[in-house]
């Protein structure tokens, strides 16, 4: 039976927004945690660590996110885990985000002037203290605008979870479309909802970037 697009359909899409946001939040938190280690590895003085993290980043940045999601989804079964689309999407997006955030944060760590590192070690700080008290606090300031900008990419990336069958906003749009056959209307609304999530972040990122550029001039 064909339904027409009404208030209930709209509410269904709106409730799917929370899954998109939840998936984005998990991928961001997971990706940030792993990404910090990736960034530290990339800037490490130990060559094998640097090579391993460089390879990690290149593999994730050189292959499609969709393939990464497929590999996690089907790969978990190979390893004997019974994985649902929700966990597969969260894990896949976390790994992907960790590579991208790692590469962004590598740049931020390297942007901290060399003299700061030297001053820190001259004061007798070892690597953990040097990172914790001298380098990272300064790198964080530089990292905020591009990280907010990356959040937009991450939210958009969660739409691919629809393809492996997790019901977030895009999948909800497909479901509503299958029931109503009003693709132009349905996907316009879906696009508008994504826009409402992403645009404020884009504006914020641009503003933070300007403010940072003005301060460091």
């Amino acid at each position, binding site marked *: 039976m064909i339904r027409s697009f009404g208030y209930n359909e709209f509410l269904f899409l709106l409730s799917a927004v929370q899954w998109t946001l939840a998936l984005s939040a998990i991928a961001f938190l997971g990706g940030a945690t792993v990404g910090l280690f990736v960034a530290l590895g990339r800037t490490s003085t130990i060559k094998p660590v640097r090579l391993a993290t460089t390879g990690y980043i290149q*593999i994730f940045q*050189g*292959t*499609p*996110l*969709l*393939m*990464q999601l*497929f*590999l996690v989804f*089907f*790969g978990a*079964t*190979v*390893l*004997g885990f019974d994985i649902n689309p929700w966990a597969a999407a969260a894990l896949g997006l976390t790994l992907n985000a960790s590579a991208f955030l790692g590469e962004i944060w590598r740049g931020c760590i390297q942007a901290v002037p060399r003299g700061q590192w030297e001053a820190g070690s001259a004061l007798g700080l070892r690597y953990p203290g040097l990172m914790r008290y001298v380098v990272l606090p300064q790198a964080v300031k530089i990292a905020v605008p591009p990280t907010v900008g990356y959040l*937009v990419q991450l939210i*958009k*990336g*969660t*739409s*691919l979870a*629809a*393809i492996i069958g997790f019901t977030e906003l*895009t999948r909800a*749009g*497909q479901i509503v*479309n299958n029931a109503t056959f*009003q*693709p*132009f209307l349905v*996907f*316009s609304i*879906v*696009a508008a909802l*994504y*826009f409402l999530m*992403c*645009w404020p972040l*884009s504006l914020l990122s641009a503003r933070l970037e300007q403010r940072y550029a003005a301060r460091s001039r």
Partner: protein
Amino acid sequence: MPVNYDFQFDAVLASWDYLLQGAWLTVQLSLGAMVIGLAVAILCALGKTSGPKPVRWLINAYIEIIRNTPFLVQIFLIFFGLPSLGLRMSPDVAALVAMVVNVGAYATEIIRAGIESIQKGQIEAGLALGLRPLQVFRYVVLKPALRTVYPALTSQFILLMLSSSVVSAISADELTSVANNIQSQTFRSFEIYIVVTGIYLVLAMMFSALFAGIQRLVFAYDLDRR
């Protein structure tokens, strides 16, 4: 944890020709979208930096809408949505259109940044030498601008090639779609997708090499100066 999985790559290798066909369409779609998208982006960047206000506003809206919505939703709108407005396309054409529309928005912003990096004195010098405005744009503004933003532009193009896997959602016959077809016939999901992921990695490296070659050919005067 024991892994009792029996890897079988025979089914994948048996479909090797089919996979290569898919990879070839991925390359074609990507190259087509890069070339057309670059043209769109140059026009939009020109409009955004020196067009009348309504044009600038329209181009801005285009850029912000595309950059703040997922590619997958853009594909669905073009492939499923446009037919209801009377515009019907085959999956391959819809995929190309979606890719052009998408990369056009990102490339516009990149090229605009390049154009804005050209100093005003350069343009005035060009005009003083008797070049017509279009010639000034072509030789004095565009070429150095493209040289400046070339690395950003080409990494955007490689991202485009990778994101083309998403067009499998409307079953355009590119690499990911082919993989999905083989998967549904053989059920060797993991083997197929690991091979296809490898193919994408190789394609990304090939495009990188291609772009480096183009840089040496077209922007060689930059290398001479170093």
